[in-house]
């Protein structure tokens, strides 16, 4: 299957502005970065979380805890054969008393977020959990909403949203299109 892009909905500058804006929103909502932690969902959520953490560090001048989470062992909608590759989960700080911002690239059915919350709770009990996403494409199947949204992109069910980030794809952009056989 190959992806055929129909439109580019975010480019490099857009994404840079979104990271800056969401960093400020997180700080505004939580009145600073005390007891704040960012946890990225593999794969691209981890890089977005890292960018948010770096931005928050430079605004506040102190260090924010950052972790990464692989949710494939917690999913309820795995329909891939073979089983998906499992990445390493790394949360090397105590979650107790923390306000955790989960970071993902695309919010769609909400099932990844549900799995991410379950996975995280096995590591400890954060004070509260918020959700930041680069793109919200709608079609929720669970009662989940994002606290911070880069861009709302209305889509139909058979469309695909493709997020590319420099760290893995060599370029920053978000495209919308179709999968072709």
């Amino acid at each position: 299957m190959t992806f055929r892009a129909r439109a580019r909905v975010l480019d490099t500058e857009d994404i840079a502005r979104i990271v800056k804006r969401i960093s400020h929103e997180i700080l505004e909502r939580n009145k600073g970065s005390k007891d704040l932690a960012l946890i990225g969902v593999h794969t691209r959520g981890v890089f977005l979380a890292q960018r948010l953490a770096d931005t928050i560090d430079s605004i506040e001048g102190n260090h924010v805890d950052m972790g990464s989470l692989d949710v494939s062992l917690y999913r309820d909608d795995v329909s891939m054969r073979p089983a998906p590759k499992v990445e390493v989960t790394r949360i090397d700080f105590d979650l107790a008393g923390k306000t955790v911002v989960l970071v993902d690239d695309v919010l769609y059915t909400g099932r990844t977020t549900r799995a991410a919350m379950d996975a995280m709770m096995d590591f400890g009990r954060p004070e509260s959990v918020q959700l930041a996403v680069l793109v919200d494409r709608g079609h929720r199947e669970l009662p989940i909403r994002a606290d911070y949204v880069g861009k709302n992109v209305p889509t139909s069910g058979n469309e695909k949203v493709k997020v590319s980030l420099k760290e893995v794809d060599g370029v920053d952009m978000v495209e919308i299109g179709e999968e072709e056989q």
Partner: protein
Amino acid sequence: MSAQVAGVEESEVRVQEAGYKHLLAIADLEGDDIIRLLDSTRSFAEVSTRSIKKVPALRGRTIVNMFMEPSTRTRMSFELAAKRLSADVINFSPTTSSVSKGESLKDTAKTIVAMGVDAVVIRHKSAGAPKKLTEWLDCSIVNAGDGMHEHPTQALLDLYTMRERMGRLEGLKVAIVGDIDHSRVARSNMLALNKVGASVLLVAPRSLLPEGIEKMGAETTGSLDEALRWCDVLYLLRIQMERVNESRFPSLREYTLEYGLTEQRWESLEKKPLVMHPGPMNRGVEIASSVADEVESVITGQVAAGVAARMAVLYDVLGGSRE
């Protein structure tokens, strides 16, 4: 190598596998498959370091441990692996079962699977028993050691340990020492190491090397000292005491002198290799007690890696949905 299971005829028609995935032998895998399993072993190793050592990946799946040969560590390792993935586990051993009433492997296995299990982990004295099960049963089969054939999960945990300790597998020089001919561990390791680009040197008296082994691409030597000068990793096999009285086997004293990692040999080495052993060690036979103490952390590390490697394997055969 694929000797038949006692009392069972080779069936004419192979039953179509209905999309079930198995792990029967390293020989069936490509180098890329092995690397992929080692990568996911690393992720699963992390699960065992959590305070809650459990993930819901195989919730609702049932796994049967069918160990028809005595085994403590492999069985416990598979059981822990399954439990850490939230699968339900049934342990089956021949002494407490109808096997002692003379039930055949086929009937026993069919009975178990009729209860609705998703995977059978089997250890059996006959080479080829796991493969036979894939023909009889509608579920995934994992080989936990079959006769003198293979022990694929042992090879995976060993390669994982080598890669973690040495930082690479490609170009790694591994000497395997001991009763190569009777060892499924040696066979699986040798095959796996070849597939990922490591070089293997087999060290044993001529009488304990399988015939035609050179044709399989393995180098051999009769000199442990030569191997020690060459290798990055020294893999000592356990001497199976029940074989010692066979005519092909040298006396124990002779064996230790020629092929044992004695204190004197160890101390004389300038560059010490990584020493590995599948356990349990015969101290004073293949390895001196003092040397065993010194290298123990690697060997207990192998045991810990065993749980992670088996989690990776069980998740690989059972994870994801069945189409």
